[in-house]
């Protein structure tokens, strides 16, 4: 089959074959007001040279030469050229979904190894072949808890990534799922008293993120205990996977949802990313998506197959476990290659560098008059500070010094206007942290 545009004659032929007189008749079931009457507003056509120039211009808009202190769900980490070299091999780059095990052993084995790495990192028994991203993985984790408990109320910490909560609310809107948000305490962790107050016998899941959106590490054990005491599932979301190089894995969780971007995927224009969902073996049949499984062939040799796909939408239609019908195979492969190159020690060392550089940055920034630390709970590579003036104005001044400033918390958290979320990873040299502190000091000294 060739993927070429159809000629008007071919369109007429196809319309005749299905018994429609015109395109208008074919689309007659779509209400008039939703139909596109004008041509699509797209530029072009361009010649090859013009297309290349267009992309060169766009590439020049990239923040080359800037140092970033922006994290908030997407993190800048070192990546090896080996990762790109491997994922760009045609066998991986162009291969289709590995439904046919006989011709897909390489892809299936890579997915199987990804699952193994993810379950080891998250302290869970089983991880699937990947989800779209962290936000959809977290939402699917909640829906999974809903199926497992038969309950429809979910308690989500406000310290969970605001965009993750938006995605959850979008899914919940027409599904009968009630989402309730739990405030954060003065130290930046979820308010456990408020959480316990809201926790009734009708709660399907408690959802927290750790390190949470403020960079603060949530205490898993007491939260899991509260959830389990009322028959609810304990769901942990992770946006910064590198934290697992140092922090104890959330093994108390019933379901873990993670963003895999930190593992070998660059922070490029919002994606593509790879979501991770991991859980206990006994819940595997309520897990969305698919798994690669290890098996033996008729001659006893090791082989891999796609499994649980029998519960996906293209087979079970409206009875499917979830509406996800694919996975992020290439991004998952990048994560697998990246983590395999790093190894256990490498990941730990990377995590240690994040921790110590972020703590160094905090101590440097606290030397600036008027800068205060917002929350005092332990943090990994992100922390929140309060500035004596608007974060957005400060950031515009920082950008003149080629610094991408911290995330302004005021938009998602109106009570945190003037508070900024600073991210420091292993990619940030000490001298750049000092330059940032100097630039911030100058920005704050400028007359308003």
């Amino acid at each position, binding site marked *: 089959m060739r993927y070429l545009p159809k000629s008007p004659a071919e369109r007429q032929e196809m319309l005749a074959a299905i018994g429609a007189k015109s395109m208008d008749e074919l689309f007659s079931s779509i209400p008039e007001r939703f139909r596109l009457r004008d041509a699509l507003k797209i530029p072009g056509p361009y010649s090859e040279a013009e297309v290349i120039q267009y992309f060169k211009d766009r590439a020049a808009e990239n923040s080359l030469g800037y140092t970033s202190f922006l994290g908030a769900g997407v993190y800048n980490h070192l990546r090896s050229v080996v990762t790109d070299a491997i994922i760009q091999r045609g066998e991986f780059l162009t291969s289709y979904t590995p439904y046919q095990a006989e011709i897909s052993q390489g892809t299936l084995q890579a997915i199987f190894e990804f699952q193994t790495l993810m379950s080891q990192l998250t302290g869970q028994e089983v991880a699937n072949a990947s989800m779209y991203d962290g936000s959809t993985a977290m939402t699917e984790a909640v829906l999974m808890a809903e199926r497992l408990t038969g309950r429809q109320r979910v308690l989500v910490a406000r310290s969970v990534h605001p965009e993750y909560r938006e995605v959850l609310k979008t899914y919940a809107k027409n599904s009968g799922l009630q989402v309730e948000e739990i405030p954060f305490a003065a130290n930046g962790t979820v308010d456990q008293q408020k959480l316990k107050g809201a926790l009734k016998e009708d709660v399907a899941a408690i959802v927290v993120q750790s390190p949470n959106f403020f960079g603060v590490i949530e205490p898993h054990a007491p939260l899991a205990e509260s959830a389990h005491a009322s028959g609810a599932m304990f769901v942990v979301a992770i946006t910064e996977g590198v934290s697992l190089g140092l922090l104890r894995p959330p093994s108390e969780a019933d379901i873990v949802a993670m963003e895999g971007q930190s593992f070998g995927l660059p922070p490029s224009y919002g994606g593509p990313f790879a979501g991770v969902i991991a859980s206990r073996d006994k819940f595997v*049949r309520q897990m969305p998506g698919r798994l690669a499984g290890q098996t033996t062939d008729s001659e006893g040799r090791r082989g891999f197959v796609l499994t649980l796909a*029998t*519960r996906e939408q293209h*087979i*079970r239609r409206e*009875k499917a476990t979830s509406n996800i019908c694919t996975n992020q195979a290439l991004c998952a492969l990048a994560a697998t290659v990246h983590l395999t190159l790093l190894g256990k020690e490498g990941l730990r060392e990377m995590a240690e560098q994040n921790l110590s550089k972020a703590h160094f940055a905090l101590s440097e920034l606290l030397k600036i008059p008027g800068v205060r630390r917002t929350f005092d709970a332990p943090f990994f590579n992100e922390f929140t500070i309060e500035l004596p003036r608007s974060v957005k104005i400060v950031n515009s001044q920082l950008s003149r010094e080629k610094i991408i400033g911290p995330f302004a918390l005021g938009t998602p958290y109106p009570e945190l206007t003037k508070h900024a979320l600073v991210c420091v990873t292993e990619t940030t040299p000490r001298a750049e942290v000092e330059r940032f502190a100097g630039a911030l000091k100058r920005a704050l000294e400028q007359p308003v």
Partner: protein
Amino acid sequence: MAYPKTYRYTKDHEWIDVKGDLATIGITDHAQHELGDVVFVELPKPGTKIEAGKSFGTVESVKAVSEIYAPAAGEVLEANGELHNTPEKINSDPHGAAWLIKVRLANPAAVNSLMDAAAYEAYIAEKGKETSA
């Protein structure tokens, strides 16, 4: 495999064995053969109300996940827990050891409208011809 003469059968390939107002329900040999190797079953908890013609569980094989439909209305008394660890029994003994649920029927007489063994065998023979045609 023979189809027990005392059972009744549905067009969706379930069997029901009625004794008074109690009944045992399973899937037929034809159904297990069509499904292939069964790897998992999902069954309702005791106390669940089932409705005639409505799905009460699923059977998962290496090829597909299929709904199991209730041949008659009633309340589940017991689900066959053995199948959780040995779902392959559905392939080896579908009319016996691999029963799925035991129920108390709301209206035992309603079962009489289902096919008997001879009618069911004729039904699957006819279906076989359609497929091969």
